[in-house]
């Protein structure tokens, strides 16, 4: 009887044990890689293309009004390291196109960049209606680079008449084009002249639509004398010129060596037509036009003369060039300062806020002449090693283009080439620190998400504010924003902007209260430092996923 009782209890315990074990283990059969909430494959890995240590943002700006040029731009690279410039998808291309006014590219991470092994290339930009632009660039250290490229419009319809002068052996036309250093704070004086001349022997080769215009020198002399008697200009050069060029650091071939110098194109142009006694020259044959330049300013620049861009740098051709065809372009430039530090001092940006930043500083000389622009992208506090800085006293004027930052006072530096320079930045009233966490989901591969290290931009949605550059590292960006506002966040991938939106609207516990766009999810929480973290997950419509995965 007792045995039966014990056995029954054992039986009971045994089955209880088995039932408990099984009930506890039933969920073990669920696949943990299936999302419990959505029933879809779990996003297991979050990856980042953080192996790029140098990013390059190119902005194509209309020199006349400072706006981004949103026409189709064709961009190519030349020079020593042209093949090492790639997209963030790792692609090398012969050319790039964008109609967004800017381009994000990077450098093959296998290429070492240092002061001893600088990265050297030239960017060539062609946009319809604008003068083509070529700029030589030398990078001495890795980091985030921004290049603002100012393009001037072609004045197709605006010919300038240049009236000539003559003697027996030489028909000379001394003419002027006017130009001044751009942004030179009101100094509009001309600093140079350009003159055009033709030898009589060359003039004999010129043809109009009926053939040779003159048979011999005597005929030229007679025609010229008659023109004086009748007050008719003997020779007129119809020029098309452009003057809106911004100075900057460029690579110039000096004595066979490419050097970074402070350089400015003064004028580009071409002889569109030549009229002799009102008759248009249609063919020069072997005849030549001599174009001469002369600097007329007080302070002779280090180098002045005609230049041409070749193999990634500017070649100085001298003060005279010869052209044997019509519509050949010429470029007159000067080297304002040939003493440029390849690597200079350090500039540090400090703040008591947690934020990324994109700060632009325009450098002016002590006469308020624009020199160049420096761009800094990073997170406070961050120190930048300056590179390619003219060795001259300069004033750094920080652009007041970020409403979240209080205006930053200008600093005057005797020599940027050495030393440490501190810049304190404070935030504007009404702005609060947030942390944005972006996760780009891929529609066709839910296993993997992308949290990019990339340059992004934010601004108040539907506002005319300028887009503010932010630095995103592994999908995380510290930003400033106003409460109860809707913001747009965008990043440029393969010449297309990918947009996301988020609100800065939360309950007392930091939970997100704003609406969420389709294909996205937004959640928020309060971080230990009391900031609010806004996590944005979005299925990207762009090729970012297929490019990376």
């Amino acid at each position, binding site marked *: 009887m007792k045995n039966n009782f014990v056995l029954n209890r054992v039986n009971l315990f045994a089955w209880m*044990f088995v039932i408990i074990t099984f009930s506890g283990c039933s969920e073990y*059969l669920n696949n943990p890689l299936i999302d419990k909430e959505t029933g879809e494959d779990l996003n297991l*890995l979050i990856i980042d293309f953080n192996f790029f240590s140098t990013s390059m943002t190119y902005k194509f700006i209309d020199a006349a009004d400072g706006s981004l040029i949103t026409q189709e731009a064709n961009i190519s690279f030349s020079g020593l390291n042209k093949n090492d410039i790639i997209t963030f998808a790792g692609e090398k291309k012969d050319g790039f196109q964008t109609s967004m006014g800017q381009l994000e590219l990077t450098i093959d991470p296998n290429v070492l960049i240092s002061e001893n092994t600088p990265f050297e290339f030239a960017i060539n930009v062609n946009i319809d209606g604008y003068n083509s632009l070529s700029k030589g660039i030398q990078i001495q250290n890795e980091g985030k680079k921004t290049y603002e490229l100012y393009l001037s419009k072609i004045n197709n319809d605006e010919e300038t008449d240049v009236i000539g002068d003559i003697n027996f052996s030489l028909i000379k036309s001394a003419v002027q084009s006017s130009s001044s250093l751009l942004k030179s704070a009101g100094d509009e004086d001309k600093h140079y002249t350009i003159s055009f001349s033709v030898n009589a022997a060359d003039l004999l080769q010129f043809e109009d639509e009926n053939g040779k215009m003159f048979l011999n020198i005597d005929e030229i002399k007679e025609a010229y004398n008659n023109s004086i008697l009748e007050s008719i200009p003997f020779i007129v050069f119809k020029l098309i010129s452009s003057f809106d060029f911004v100075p900057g650091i460029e690579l110039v071939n000096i004595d066979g060596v490419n050097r970074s110098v402070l350089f400015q194109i003064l004028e580009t142009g071409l002889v569109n037509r030549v009229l002799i006694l009102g008759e248009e020259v249609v063919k020069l044959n072997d005849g030549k036009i001599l174009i001469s330049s002369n600097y007329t300013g007080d302070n002779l620049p280090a180098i002045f003369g005609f230049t041409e861009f070749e193999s990634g740098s500017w070649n100085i051709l001298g003060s005279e060039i010869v052209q044997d065809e019509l519509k050949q372009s010429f470029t007159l430039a000067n080297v304002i300062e040939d003493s440029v530090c390849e690597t200079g001092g350090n500039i540090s940006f400090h703040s008591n806020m947690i934020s990324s930043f994109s700060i632009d500083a325009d450098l002016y000389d002590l006469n308020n002449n624009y020199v160049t622009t420096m761009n800094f992208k990073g997170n406070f506090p961050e120190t930048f090693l300056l590179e390619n800085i003219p060795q001259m006293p300069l004033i750094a004027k920080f652009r007041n283009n970020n409403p979240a930052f209080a205006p930053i006072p200008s600093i005057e530096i005797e020599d940027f080439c050495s030393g440490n320079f501190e810049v304190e930045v404070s935030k504007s009233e009404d702005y609060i620190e947030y942390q944005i966490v972006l996760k780009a989901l891929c529609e066709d591969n839910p296993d993997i998400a992308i949290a990019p290290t990339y340059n992004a931009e934010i601004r108040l949605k539907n506002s005319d504010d300028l887009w503010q550059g932010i630095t995103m590292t592994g999908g*995380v960006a510290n930003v400033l924003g106003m409460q109860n506002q809707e913001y747009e966040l965008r990043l440029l991938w393969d010449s297309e902007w990918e947009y996301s939106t988020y609100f800065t609207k939360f309950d007392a516990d930091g939970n997100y209260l704003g609406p969420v766009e389709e294909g996205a999810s937004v959640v928020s929480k309060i971080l230990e430092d009391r900031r609010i973290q806004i996590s944005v997950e979005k299925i990207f419509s762009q090729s970012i996923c297929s490019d990376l995965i």
Partner: protein
Amino acid sequence: MKKARLFIVLVCLLAASNYLLAQEAQTTSTRVDTKGFYIGAQASTNGWGFDLKYVFNKIISLKTGVETLSVLHDFNFDENDISYGASLNYNTGGLFLLTDLNFTKNLYLSMGAAINSLNPEIKGQANSDLEYGDIIIPADKVGEFSLSLTPAYKISPYAALGFRSFLGKKERLSYNLETGFYYLGSPNIEIEATGLLAPTADPAHGQEQVLENQFSQYKFYPVVKFGVAIKLF
């Protein structure tokens, strides 16, 4: 998944076999006084080790011991065109203190707790370069990762059903087989990663919490244990 099912079935069969064995033993064994101090060794899914056991009477025994298991397994796998070399370092074991309650001479219910040292870890690193577009990313820039798991409770409650029998004329030698589980609580997952995978480990993305939620049902650590012991005095 198939392995998990097989394991559950195995646990069930062992429990059932214990029950049947108990019934068998109930009818064949002869009761003698087994009171005394035993030293033994055991092998289990939570490691191998030794224990000290004191049998107070026919019903209650108290045992304490240590067990440990460390398995290192190297393997390779491919993920998104990257070849990774990985190693699984499976560490478990613990220091336990258990009470066995015998309901028959052979069948017992074991309860107690252990200071658990369960800590499996997978470490890996890319061992091939990554073809990325038109460039090659060296393996060292692709990065490394590690994923480790620890129980929520360092001290884990334990329960098991066991079969014990004595051998020899004086029954100084015993063996036992038991099946049960440690209660670990939802596991804590720790991820570390560099390079390409760095965001997976970034707390800002909360991937550890996501995985912990996905694996939260794995609260029990199944144990199948076989032991032998000899009576010292």
